[in-house]
């Protein structure tokens, strides 16, 4: 295989992995604060249409990304109010967010089906982008791909090295102790949920403004759920998330590649590969109960209500 094919192969994997990485990075922070938000798929869809509509109406893809983040945050706050202030069951509230997101995105997007919007431009570094292989892969990508790496590094640094990160982890591992130490558990969780919403929204914008790049009702096609599985896969550690997202990007690419080859396996069954892979990965990773218990935020999914 010559360099051209290898380059396009690596580019395709990066392209397919980025939405998973973006959405999962946000959910990682949400879950580290002790909140399980199953609404990633819904927030992605809302972000996708908000981004697409804004980019179409203003002519700026970057404004679209900002709008997508804002929309993701806005809708995640519904979840935050329900689960944090009204102490609702997080599983049910997350599902409600996904169902609502599907409907709301379809409603907002009714007028945007089958039309084009400006797509995210590539940010080429002068000279560097001309290097064979490394140029196109590392120095000529769209801005959200750079962003996905930068934000992951920030998250890792934040969780390991900063005081605020330590507080976030404390809230996720023992909200009663964190509360007793005077930290505002609910405010921190609101923030973590909003961050997750914003990232899911950006992941949606990546799909509608770059990957697809069109609006359709089933644009997310389970990516939000795969992102949730990736957080479990990573055992709530940022760099493992990177590995997981790229593994899944690889599987997604493989399924597209096999379909293109016209191998004997029928196309719909090949499309099932990423979902099948998610199950396999979940099984492999959850098998070790001790490891899961060790890494999982101890308060994940539990409501907190201070008596005083």
């Amino acid at each position, binding site marked *: 295989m010559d360099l051209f094919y290898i380059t396009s192969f690596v580019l395709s994997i990066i392209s397919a992995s980025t939405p998973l990485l973006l959405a999962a990075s946000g959910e990682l922070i949400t879950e580290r604060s002790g909140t399980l938000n199953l609404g990633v798929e819904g927030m992605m869809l809302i972000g996708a249409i908000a981004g697409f509509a804004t980019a179409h109406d203003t002519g700026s893809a970057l404004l679209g990304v900002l709008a997508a983040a804002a929309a993701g945050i806005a809708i995640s706050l519904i979840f935050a109010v329900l689960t944090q202030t009204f102490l609702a069951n997080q599983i049910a509230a997350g599902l409600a967010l996904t169902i609502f997101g599907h409907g709301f995105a379809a409603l907002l997007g009714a007028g945007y089906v089958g039309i084009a919007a400006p797509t995210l431009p590539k940010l080429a570094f002068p000279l560097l982008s001309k290097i064979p292989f490394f140029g196109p892969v590392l120095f000529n990508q769209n801005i959200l791909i750079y962003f996905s790496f930068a934000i992951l590094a920030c998250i890792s640094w934040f969780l390991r090295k900063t005081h605020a990160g330590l507080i976030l982890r404390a809230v996720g591992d023992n909200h009663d102790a964190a509360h007793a130490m005077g930290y505002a558990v609910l405010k921190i969780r609101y923030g973590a949920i909003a961050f997750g919403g914003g990232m899911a929204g950006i992941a949606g914008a990546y799909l509608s403004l770059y990957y697809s790049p069109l609006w359709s009702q089933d644009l997310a*096609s389970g990516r939000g759920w795969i992102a949730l599985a990736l957080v479990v896969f990573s055992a709530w550690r940022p760099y493992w998330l990177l590995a997981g997202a790229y593994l899944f990007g690889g599987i997604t690419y493989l399924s597209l590649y096999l379909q293109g080859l016209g191998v004997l396996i029928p196309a719909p069954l090949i499309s099932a590969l990423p979902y099948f892979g998610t199950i396999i990965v979940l099984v492999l990773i*959850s098998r070790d109960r001790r490891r899961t218990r060790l890494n999982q935020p101890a308060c994940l999914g539990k409501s907190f209500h201070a008596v005083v």
Partner: protein
Amino acid sequence: MFRLEPRGERSTFWTYGSPVLAVLLTILTMGAIFAVMGAPPVTAIETFLISPITSVAGLSALAVRAAPLIIIGVGLAFCYRANVWNIGGDGQFTLGAIAGGGLALLFPNEAFWWFYPVVLVTGILGGMAWAAIVAALKLRFNANEILTSLMLVYIAQLVLVWLVTGPWRDPHGFGFPQSAMFSAGATTPMIFSGTTIHLGCLLAPLLAIVLWQVMARSVLGFQLRVVGQAPRAARYAGFSNARLTWIALLVSGGLSGLAGIIEVTGPVGQLTTSITPGYGFTAVIVAFLGRLHPVGVIFAGLLLALSYLGGDAAQINLNLPNAITGIFQGVLLFYLLGADILILYRLKRVNPAAPVTENS
């Protein structure tokens, strides 16, 4: 300012009052959404919630839509009571349709009276098999059932697409992605001639009552509730968590499969790529709105069935996208979850000027 104060016990009034409050708030919110979209709110709500059921045809359409929601919903209510989060009802529905439908396609000329029951049982087994994967992975490998059951929804849908575009495609179907129509021997019987009400509409409330009795009166039902509400107590009492997880998933999977096979051998009449408008997900709302109680599920199933009819009516009469069905369902669940706090807490007025006094 208001403050939440624990009641110390569950409020019976708000257990049943909260769904009513949620429905009222949802109707008000839908009115606001209609107004924003430029439709007169009162007329729009009338079109959405009342006009679909003002005729006999409308009422029988409601029963047909409610049947799968109730059948899946009672199964999910049963499952959620045990704290097992099966949200893959749509996948089990699809597998039921594939398994039973496959049998019906295999013997297109079978006309014996027992053939249809065999098709139904095959559908149930198909749904059970799909849920059994979830149970096995959860118990053997500790894999999260929410994620595995959901992934199986996507896989089931793609298997169905493969079957109706490949091996099971109707050779006389002009290339459309659909199977042959099911024969008369494998068709859901109609209950009232002249309407669309079929066997499933009758089975749905019957199954709800059976499951109600199982949950309320049997040892199994008791064990299920204890495992869900107090897992430690259940362990001390020696209840097998694995056995109850299996039962919860097999019952809900089997019921979803039954709903699937009834739907394709009834209203749909063949296997196509779109046999469910997300009944499995809507049934999650049905289960919660029905307070995880089979009788409540019947009422909730009817209301959410109405939201499908209302979406169609709004599309035809008011030119609104029928996506408002999904919005109605999502908003309803939001309000329900929010209002449910009143079951365990009461709102207490707090004067911000006065110092907060402790009462414990």
